[in-house]
């Protein structure tokens, strides 16, 4: 019999290990992330937070263990189906990862183009998400001409444009000032309230202190519940 928690879990990790040569980046991580959960993964730099997220969207393969994402067993996914897995996620990076030679509009539209959406729909959707993040008047701007906070807002728009089930944010406020960080956090909260599952890896203490969701901590590759929360 499967429990309710198991049933509603959108991500399941079973005894996952990740090694880079002799270095253990993640040790025996077992975790269920429920549908529409807001999860924080905290820990110092180099603890393994980014590694954990990378394993979820298969930027890196696991060394040992199993991961299920929305029913897909990652160890059994053929290479050609990896794009389908990644379309389940909206990913936000600390360094934004926007294409500098493409405009704000084109960067966000890319997510829908790869899904083969129609032009008219892409235009409508891109403008709509850019309006939500407050960037609708910078459609034709190129990322290098934007501030860090603005670039991250575009990155958030790109992450949510494809209506993903899960939003992964890897140090989303790491390069931002407090005000911009607050805006990004507000946006993440908004998409969580709209039904998305949000996983944020961060070492930003303010962000964690204000967290409404579950907080997990990674220390030397080990996933644990922090004692003070």
């Amino acid at each position, binding site marked *: 019999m499967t429990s309710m928690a198991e049933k509603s879990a959108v991500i399941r990790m079973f005894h996952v290990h990740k090694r880079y040569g002799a270095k253990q980046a993640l040790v025996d991580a077992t975790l269920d992330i429920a549908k529409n959960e807001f999860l924080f993964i905290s820990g110092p730099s180099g603890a393994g937070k980014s590694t954990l997220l990378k394993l979820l*969207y298969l*930027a890196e393969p696991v060394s040992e263990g199993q991961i299920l994402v929305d029913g897909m067993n990652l160890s059994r996914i053929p290479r*050609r189906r990896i*794009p*389908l897995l*990644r*379309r389940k996620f909206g*990913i936000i990076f600390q360094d934004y*990862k*926007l*294409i500098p*030679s*493409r405009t704000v509009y084109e960067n966000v539209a*890319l*997510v829908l*183009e*790869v*899904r083969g959406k129609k*032009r008219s729909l892409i235009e409508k959707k891109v403008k709509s998400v850019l309006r939500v993040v407050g960037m609708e008047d910078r459609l034709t701007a190129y990322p290098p001409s934007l501030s860090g906070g603005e670039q991250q807002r575009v990155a958030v728009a*790109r992450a949510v444009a*494809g209506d993903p089930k899960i939003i992964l944010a890897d140090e989303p406020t790491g390069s931002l000032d407090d005000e911009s960080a607050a805006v990004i956090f507000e946006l993440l909260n908004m998409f969580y309230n709209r039904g998305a599952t949000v996983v944020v890896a961060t070492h930003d203490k303010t962000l964690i202190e204000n967290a409404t969701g579950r907080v997990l901590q990674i220390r030397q590759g080990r996933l644990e519940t922090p004692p003070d929360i």
Partner: protein
Amino acid sequence: MIFYTQRAIKDILENRFLNVVTTITIALSVLIVSAFGLFFLNAQDMFNAWKKGVRIMVYLAPGTSEAQRLDTRFRLQTIAGIQSIRFISKDDALKLMKERMQRQTSLLDNLRENPLPDAFEVTLVTESNSPEKIEFLAQRIEGLPSVSEVEYGQQWIDRFANFFNLFKLAGYGMGAMFFMATVFIAANTIRLVLYSRREEIHIMRLVGATDNFIKFPFFLEGLIQGLSGGLIGLGMLYAAFSAIGSQFEQTLSAEMVAVRFFSVGVCAAILGGGMVTGLLGCFFSLKQFMKE
């Protein structure tokens, strides 16, 4: 498709320098290979024209009477495969020789008697131009009474044909090598483009782009580069042909051979070749790059 084409054109414009290098490389290769092709085409035409004009010289034995000569002519007329027969008397032959050796006529003036024989110049019908048929006809003519010697240029033509074929083979080999070298250079310049855009490709993958979605604009770029390279190469060749072709035409007018450019079909095939070069360049560089 429109989306991919727009993407490809935009990418070409963004990486102008590398794309120009690839296009010029393809253009130069197309120019060199098709210049050889054009040379062979016209050399083949000229060769065929020479082959068509194969003549057999039938020399009569000294002291052949007019009756014997008429008899030989009659016998020649009965042989199938002969188009025309022209009698060249020994006097006419000497006159012709003197005309051709204008500066050395003093040599001929000292001759006490005309050493040249009477002869028939026999032209063959086109169907009898094969080496075997000429050989057969020559043997038959040689067997006629009053005929002392039969001369024809077949051996020379055969030797030239062998040489020409060897030359053609070398041309094919060189064409193939140029093709491979161009594919290699195209593949490397495209690889440079790929490396300069690896971050962009990485981001595309992260947002769920399939390999085909990433590759398709590059293939289109390869096609566009190949097509433009082909057009530029062919254009340069045509310009050079127009500039020097007319001079050759004048020189060759006596041989009744017209210098010609490639037919539309061949031009299309050359452009197709350019496109295949661009595509293959893309294919090889993408194959390696997408694995990384």
